[in-house]
Every structure is written in structure tokens, then in C-alpha cells.
């Protein structure tokens, strides 16, 4: 098992010079945080991450491209605009946290973490190989700056709620974001955790459902329909917002609305396209869990120029 990754080689230019964290009594030190990127900058990063996702899954010859590509804009907006976090200080107590409950979409998370400076960009293509820090599903033993090990569906919201309640006890401004798949919400634990979150008024948690309509065996509507999705979350006491999950300004607005929502947790139902950005992968159930062939990788990368 590789040891903890060194976070010391971060380029200082990638940060704003020391911004004061003033919203918490417990946060007295000045900390550098990720610079907020503009929408056009995020769109550029998103396209680069899509290429990285295709390349790493192609090199691994296995993995889940569809649900990684559908979540790109959501994850980019979190890591490069919304979350208060610091790759040079990954265990900063008051940071915002992100949990990828749909752990099979690990490539989108790895691309975002590498682009942020948490982990090496040049090792992304070791994905899923023996000894790689980029394990098949996110694993904190290999990447200590990950917020949680995931991979068994249905568990992430519970983890997020525990973290968020710890932040509340510590009077910390930390917010926790957790991304679920739409197929994932078929798991009963999701609804146990939804009840818990509303009951305990955990308003520093945001659940994001990557609503791409496809799961491993086919279309969600044919496997186990989850409609009406927003109404389900509302019935469980959450504030629900429906957006186009590829529209970065809409994603930013939803996060802002969530931050202003007090007394209840927020669920963002993000309508997305599975395989987004690669024509032959879009809305194609085959690419839930199948790697592109070398020819398909070439074709996909041409489309993502």
C-alpha cells in the first residue's frame, strides 16, 4: 500500500493569497483556498476532465464512463467554484466536503482532485491497476485527502449527515455535498438517511442526484422507476431544486439557493445526459460500465477537442 501522498508540491499560483475565514469562531487561522474559477474557465476544465476520464478508463480497459461524464459540470462547479477547500491543507477542519456516493464514477472525482492539485495528474492513467492510488472505487487508504471510501451504493448521504452534524457540534461553517446516482436511490438506506436529515434539520448538507436515467441493466424507468424524484425528496422533508446538470450557472444558482435554505437539507435533482460529450456514449446504457475500445477512445478524444 502506498503511503500518504505528499501535498507539498502545489504551485502557489493556483491559490488566492490567504483569504480570511471569518464565519466561524473556531476558524482563527488564515488559510489559502481554491481560487474561484469563472464559468468559461470551468467549461475549459470540464472539457479537459472529460478527456481525462476517457483516457483513464480506456487505459484501464474497465470502468464506468457514462456516469462519470454525466457528472462533470456538477463536480467541476463544486471543486472550482462552490466549495471552500484547500489542496495544500486537505485536512483543514473547516473545509467543505464532497462525497461521491455513486463511487463507480470515481474517474470524474479523480480528474477533479488531480486538476485541483490534490493528486498527481500524470498518474491518472494508472486507474484500476495494482498499486495505483486511483483505485476502482474511491478508497481513503490510498488517497487520504478523499472524504470517504465509497462504492457500495446508498451509503453516502448517511456519511454526509454524520460529517455535517459533527460540523454543527463544532460550530464550523463546513458544508457537505454528496452525489448520488438516480439508480442508487433505489437503495432503502437513502430514504432512511433522508428521513434522518430532515428530522435533525441538517441544513449544511446538499444531496445532488445525477439524474441521467440509466443504470447498469438499462434505463431506470425499465429497472425500477424512481419518478417523481423531486417530490420524493420533498415528501421526506427536503428542499428540492430541479436543474439542468450541465448548465454551470444553473448549478451555481442551485448551490446558492441551498446555502440560503435554513432548517432543512437540500436535494438538487440534476437532469443530466449519461455519457455527455461523446456522441456515441450519450444516452447509451452500454457505456454505464463498459470501457471504450482504443478506436472509441480516439473517436471520443476527437469529439472532445
Amino acid at each position, binding site marked *: 500500500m502506498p503511503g500518504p501522498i505528499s501535498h507539498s508540491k502545489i504551485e502557489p499560483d493556483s491559490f488566492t493569497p490567504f483569504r480570511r475565514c471569518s464565519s466561524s469562531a473556531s476558524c482563527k487561522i488564515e488559510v489559502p483556498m481554491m481560487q474561484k474559477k469563472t464559468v468559461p474557465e470551468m467549461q475549459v476544465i470540464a472539457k479537459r476532465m472529460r478527456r481525462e476520464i476517457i483516457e483513464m478508463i480506456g487505459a484501464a480497459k474497465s470502468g464506468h464512463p457514462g456516469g462519470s461524464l454525466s457528472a462533470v459540470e456538477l463536480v467541476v462547479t463544486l471543486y472550482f467554484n462552490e466549495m471552500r477547500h484547500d489542496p495544500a491543507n486537505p485536512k483543514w477542519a473547516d473545509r467543505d466536503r464532497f462525497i461521491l456516493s455513486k463511487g463507480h464514477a470515481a474517474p470524474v472525482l479523480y480528474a477533479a482532485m488531480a486538476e485541483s492539485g490534490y493528486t498527481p495528474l500524470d498518474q491518472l492513467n494508472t486507474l484500476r491497476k495494482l498499486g495505483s492510488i486511483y483505485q476502482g472505487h474511491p478508497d481513503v487508504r490510498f488517497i487520504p485527502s478523499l472524504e470517504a471510501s465509497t462504492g457500495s451504493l446508498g451509503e453516502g448521504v448517511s*456519511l454526509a449527515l454524520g460529517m455535517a452534524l*459533527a460540523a454543527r457540534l463544532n460550530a464550523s461553517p463546513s458544508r457537505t455535498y454528496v452525489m448520488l446516482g438516480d439508480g442508487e436511490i433505489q437503495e432503502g438506506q437513502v430514504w*432512511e438517511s433522508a*428521513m434522518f436529515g430532515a428530522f435533525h434539520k441538517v441544513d449544511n448538507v446538499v444531496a445532488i442526484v445525477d439524474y441521467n436515467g440509466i443504470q447498469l441493466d438499462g434505463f431506470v424507468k425499465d429497472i425500477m422507476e424512481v419518478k417523481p424524484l423531486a417530490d420524493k425528496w420533498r415528501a421526506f422533508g427536503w428542499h428540492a431544486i430541479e436543474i439542468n446538470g450541465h448548465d454551470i450557472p444553473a448549478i451555481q444558482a442551485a448551490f446558492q439557493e441551498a446555502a440560503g435554505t435554513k432548517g432543512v437539507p437540500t436535494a438538487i435533482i440534476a437532469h443530466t445526459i449519461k455519457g455527455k460529450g461523446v456522441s456515441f456514449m450519450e444516452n447509451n446504457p452500454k457505456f454505464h460500465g463498459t470501457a471504450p475500445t482504443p478506436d472509441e477512445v480516439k473517436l471520443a478524444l476527437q469529439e472532445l477537442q
Partner: protein
Amino acid sequence: MIPTKTKFDLKLGMATREAFGKALVEAGRRNKDVVVCDADLSKSTYTSLFHHEFPDRFFSCGIAEANMVAIAAGFAYAGKIPVAASFSCFVVNKGFEQLRVTVAYPKLNVKIVGTHSGISIGEDGPSQMSVEETALACSLPGFVVLSPADEVSTTALVHAAIDHVGPVFIRTGRMKAPVIYPAEQKFEIGKAVELIDGSDVTVIATGLLVAEAIRAQEALEAEGISVRVIDFHTVKPLDRETITRAAAETGAIVVAEEHLIDGGLGVRVAQAVAETHPCVMEFVGLHDTYAESGSPEQLLDKYGLISRDVIAAVHRALARKK
């Protein structure tokens, strides 16, 4: 370890679940990072005591054990020391997937406490009886598994569990348990306590069966059989040194537990014996069966978990030893 005393009056004390609830309050006073999760059984698990004193650090999870275990994992990720409690059968069985992926796999500092373990819960019957959780908990890499016999050891081991960094499961019972230890007895995770020295045979017992082993020893002594009695309050990690010494010095080992024999303490001890100093072994426990409703005393008698059964196992072991 030197025997703590030679005569045991075995007066009934608190149930180990009650001792847990009281120790938890003390742990909460000592350490403000301790938080407690419960699944609608706080009056039975005695976490209600913690709730009463620390309402802000107590989290009602409703009847949803899977979520409760993962909520505890979330607390641990954020640096808290969560204690999640329910009946053993519910928290371990319904929460097992979460114990595996959200607690054991990232090796988080989560404490799981199961109450109402074994068949001695009595009248409620097998759906509420936990007879497999030692096997399940021990199968989780990195977990410490504790099974205290009385209120003194429970209190000490609850504090040891809170101080230990890493996942711990504590198995406690519903019935009032005979007091075995003096209040000042010290306990260490992973270090068994030799209660009575002996040379013909060793009885290794855990939980409620420790008192039965002591009763068996008193009867066997009258027959002229010298019995060593050891309390294995820690099922994992196993005190292999004590086992090896018992195997070498007494040549026969009986293991007694209120659990299925499959996957229980006995099987774990047998593995250590096989790997270090093979000797004759016999097992007292549940033989591939669930129990039924009845009084705790009736059930322990019917399913072969009293001193009579330990005595019989010792006789079998000694017959084979010759």
C-alpha cells in the same frame, strides 16, 4: 496473570448493558467528542442515560440501523468518537454491510455496542436473539471485539474502547450478571484474565459463561480435577500467548460461550491451538440451531449453556486426553 481471588461469591450485579450505559455517561463527561446514536431502543440499551445528560450529543436514528451505522461513520470521519448502540442482532445484522464498507474498510474510530446478546434475553425469542454476531464482528478486518462478563469488566472495557483508536464492537447482555471482579481490577484489550489457576484442563469462557465456568471449577475441584479458568473478555485480537500456555501446561481446553459454535470464540481459540500447541479441545455453545421463547434460565438449561454442560465437556476432554 495472578488470580484475583480464590473464592467467588458471584452475587448478581448489573446487567452488562446497564453497566455500559452508565460507563458511557462517564465517558461523555471525560471526552466531549463522544457522540451517541441509537435506534429507538435507548431505554433498553441504557443510552437513554447519555441522552438525558448530553441531549446535544445524542442522535435518535429511528428504527434504521443501516443508516445509524453509516451516520456514526460520518461522525468518525469528522473526528468525533461515535458510539452506536442497539440490540446486537439488529445493529450487527441489519448494519453489517455498513459495518463492512463504511466502518471496517476505512478503519474508522467507530464503537458499536450490541445489547441483548445471546439466548438469555428469554421470552422475546430467536428474532431478537443474537447468536452469530461474534462471528460477524470478528470477520471485519481491524475490528476489536469485546465480550465482558460482568459490570466491572464492562465498565473498564467501555472506557478502553473509547480510548482505543479504531473500530470496536462490544457484546453485552440483558440479564443481570454475576459480579466476578473486584472494583479495582484492571483490564487491557487483548489480554485475557486468568481467574483460577489449574493444571488438568483449561476452561476458556466469555460473557455470561465465565460465571458458569467458575461454578464448574468449584464442582470439579471437589472431584479432584484441577481446572484453570480464563476470562476471554477480548475475542479479537485473541490472546494467543495465554492460549498457548494453557495448551502446553494443561493439555486440554474447553471453550464456553453463549453463541453459535460456528464462528465463535471456540473456533478462534482452536485455530490458535492448532497453529501453536495442538491439544484436546471441547466446545460449549449453540450447536447449529436457533433457540425459542422461555425464561433465560430455562433456555440456558435447555440449550446446554450452564455449569453442568461445562463439567460434562471437561469430563469429555479429560477422557480424550488420556
